[in-house]
């Protein structure tokens, strides 16, 4: 050992390096890497990680890559292809001793290495790297790294990294076995972790609260912190569910408004409405493909371009359907239902024939992907965008219905078709336009749905029953009713989901709506007027 230490010292001096505290320990550390005792190896790794020896990084890296070799005499070498480098000096080794063996890796050593790497990253120049390293250490909270963390904390300037490091320190302290004389640091650590919150902190704190070795004061503090965190997690869980519910409700709203318009004005349930959505989604895909082929620079906004295109394509298709099919079935709403169902089969099969039966990949542009964390919940951007989009569509529709002459005529026909006709409103024209508007809205819904769901010929089928439920639940000819029903069904489903499961929640919602319709046969907001009462 003496000989080794001397050699090492000489080498260091020869390199012109400063004589550092812990230098002697480091000399041991190199040799300990080859030790048969795992504890010695991991300790050596930690020591090396905490040192500022210029060779430490290279040695640890070589160890991780299985390029570190040890000789029986305790000298350590890094292999570079065919050549060997003396691990202590970094100089090429002239000759290699006999019996050189690679240092084995196992899981514990790998874990220790990863921690050591994180420890070194804590001192990296970029704050982002340091923050990442702190995150990694927080997840591991290895007591061996406490010194490293404290050292890093002492030199850290960046506020965000400091906060995170404080948390890491707290977690690390609590990861150590309790000592009777050091109560205060543990109490502080518990408080610090309690303030952080989150599932991980809760796990550590719950462990402390249940540990018998812990001082009662610490356990009590930990228990309180756990219940505080639980409360927060629950509150954020509710908020998260509410967001999911809102998001699903907004999809339902988009899908159902068009249906509600045609149902309100013409008394016709358009069974091909889901297929209009499906076509809207395919139009989105085609617009994306076309823009990618012609002006690739505009690809991120292809989805925005697709919105009016889908509206116009589906709207035009809707008018064609009304003129070519529905108008021959005036006064026979139930048979219209059958005819539009037939139409939906044909549209599905046509899309299947043209585009194939499998899902197509509609791109989500970069500015719509990912999520933002708000407190303890994740807001996915595409769902947020759909929420906003649904609001805009509803607002636009309100304007059309309230402020345009078409809207006035549509409302008149909804309330009393015959009287409206007597007043000079051309009801066939209103019907055609209303049907076109409904189909166009379905197209818009298709654009939105293409961002969150699989786009296949069956897309419409998965939304149609839910949209029907929204329409009959909300009541006919009242957009507020549709809005309330969509949000109620969306929220209701998501609120029930965690307790009884997704499928049962769906069944429960269906049954509740069926029962509700029995009590209120015309939905939540029935249109009042002489025309609609039989």
């Amino acid at each position, binding site marked *: 050992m003496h000989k080794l230490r001397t050699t090492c010292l000489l080498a260091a001096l020869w390199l012109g390096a400063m004589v550092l505290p812990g230098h002697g320990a480091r000399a041991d550390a190199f040799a300990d890497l080859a030790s048969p005792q795992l504890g010695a190896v991991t300790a050596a790794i930690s020591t090396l990680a905490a040192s500022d020896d210029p060779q430490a990084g290279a040695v640890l890296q070589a160890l991780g890559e299985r390029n570190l070799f040890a000789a029986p005499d305790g000298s350590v070498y890094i292999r570079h292809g065919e050549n060997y480098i003396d691990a202590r000096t970094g100089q090429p080794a002239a000759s290699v001793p006999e019996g050189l063996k690679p240092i084995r890796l196992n899981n514990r050593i790998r874990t220790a290495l990863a921690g050591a790497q994180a420890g070194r990253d804590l001192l990296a120049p970029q704050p982002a790297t340091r923050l990442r390293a702190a995150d990694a250490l927080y997840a591991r909270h290895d007591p061996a790294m406490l010194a490293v963390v404290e050292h890093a904390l002492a030199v850290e300037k960046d506020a965000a990294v400091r906060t995170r490091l404080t948390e890491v320190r707290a977690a690390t302290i609590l990861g150590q076995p309790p000592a009777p004389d050091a109560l205060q640091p543990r109490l502080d650590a518990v408080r610090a972790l309690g303030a952080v919150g989150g599932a991980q902190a809760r796990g550590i704190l719950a462990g402390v609260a249940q540990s018998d070795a812990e001082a009662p004061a610490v356990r009590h503090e930990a228990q309180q912190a756990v219940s505080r965190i639980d409360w927060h997690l629950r509150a954020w869980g509710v908020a998260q569910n509410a967001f999911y519910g809102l998001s699903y409700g907004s999809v339902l709203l988009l899908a159902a408004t068009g249906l509600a318009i045609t149902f309100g004005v013409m008394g016709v349930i358009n069974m091909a409405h889901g297929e209009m959505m499906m076509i809207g989604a395919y139009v989105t895909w085609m617009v994306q493909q076309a823009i990618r082929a012609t002006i690739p620079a505009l690809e991120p906004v292809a989805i925005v371009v697709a919105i009016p295109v889908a509206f116009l394509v589906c709207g035009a298709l809707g008018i064609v359907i009304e003129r070519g099919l529905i108008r021959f079935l005036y006064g026979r709403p139930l048979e219209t239902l059958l005819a539009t169902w037939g139409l939906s089969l044909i549209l599905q099969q046509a899309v299947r024939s043209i585009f194939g039966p499998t899902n197509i990949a509609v791109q989500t542009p970069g500015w719509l992907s990912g999520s933002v964390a708000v407190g303890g919940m994740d807001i996915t951007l595409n769902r947020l965008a759909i929420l906003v989009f649904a609001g805009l569509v509803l607002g636009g529709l309100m304007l059309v219905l309230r402020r345009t002459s078409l809207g006035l005529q549509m409302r008149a026909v909804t309330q009393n078709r015959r009287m409206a006709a007597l007043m000079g409103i051309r009801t066939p024209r209103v019907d055609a336009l209303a049907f076109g508007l409904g189909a166009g809205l379905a197209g818009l819904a298709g654009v939105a749905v293409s961002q969150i769901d699989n786009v296949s010929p069956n897309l419409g089928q998965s939304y149609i029953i839910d949209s029907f439920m929204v329409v009959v639940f909300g009541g006919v000819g009242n957009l507020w009713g549709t809005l309330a029903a969509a949000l109620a069904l969306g929220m209701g489903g998501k609120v029930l989901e965690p307790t009884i499961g997704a499928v049962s929640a769906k069944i429960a919602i269906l049954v509740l709506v*069926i029962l509700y319709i029995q009590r209120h046969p015309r939905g939540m907001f029935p249109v009042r007027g002489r025309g609609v009462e039989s």
Partner: protein
Amino acid sequence: MNPFSTHAPRSLRGVIWMAVAVVVAAGGLAAASLLPEGNPLHASAFVVSLAGKYLSYAMLALAVDLVWGFAGILTLGHAAFFALGGYAMGMYLMREIGARGVYGNASLPDFMIFLSWKNLPWYWWGSEHFAWAAVLVVAVPGLLAGVFGWLAFRSRVSGVYLSIITQALTYALMLAFFQNGLGFGGNNGLTDFKDILGADLHAPHTRAVLLVVTGLLLAASLLAARFVVGSRFGNLLVAVRDAESRTRFLGYRPEQAKLLVWVFSAMIAGLGGALYVTQVGIINPGEFAPANSIESVIWVAVGGRGTLCGAVLGAILVNLGKTLFTAWLPEFWLYGLGLLFICTTLFLPNGLMGLWRHVRKAPPEEVTPEVADTQGDEA
């Protein structure tokens, strides 16, 4: 126009002819299936089970026609009653397998052992007795229809609203039956049947008998339906269909009439489902799919709504077409079915029976109740 004058669809002779034709055809086919293989008239097991399937579907069509053609209730969920009847029969057939299942358990069906259940759920009690299964086949659909109809008709849910909630009903049932926890085999449903009443289900004789029984029960249902719609009660139904409010103002109780025919119809559908399962050999949650119910409506529309014979005819013809189409041009079947929906509603509002009457220059049958209804709504 007096709604009570529309008696045309209920000509007794036609129904009797149809019933006889069904029984003769089923009997003939059953006899043909027992001929030796080499005989040119021999009918294969495939043809026999296909015919059994058509006749079971014809019972479903009859059930739909009873409520849609005569009471004006467009049901988009009648396949639910059909499937429930099928499941009731499937339970019995499942128990009949006994210890011959993969796991060799005498009392628990294979899928329950697979889910490591220890005991039969209570609703499977007694399912080893055929008589109890036969009761369940009509009682379960009848009960569900009773509860659903009582709630719906009492609060005057009608028209498109009713259609949509019947669809929601079958959709909810489909979702429920897909779940393993419900105890009906989840995704796979009930299958791998071996015996019925001790007779091998795969033996030609058993199949022949089942086909004849199906033919007889269809004929019986046809006659029973004819009896119902030909009675004073049938007149009331047509009155409700054509002018519900007026009928109510005259002092009748439309909701009771509707409820009665609704439950009766659900029972016929359940019976059809039970016969279907014995001959097709499987029942799974796919039978609850809303599309199935809507398809059964088009059978009635093609045959002629409000004509009992038309429903039977439509079911057989459309399904025959489906079999042929899916064998020859599988790609085009959905186009064909879609066009059938559109063309029937546009050009053939009274179906094939209406066409037949038109060709024979008989006075056209009055089956345009919605006109009256919506006019009533809007006036």
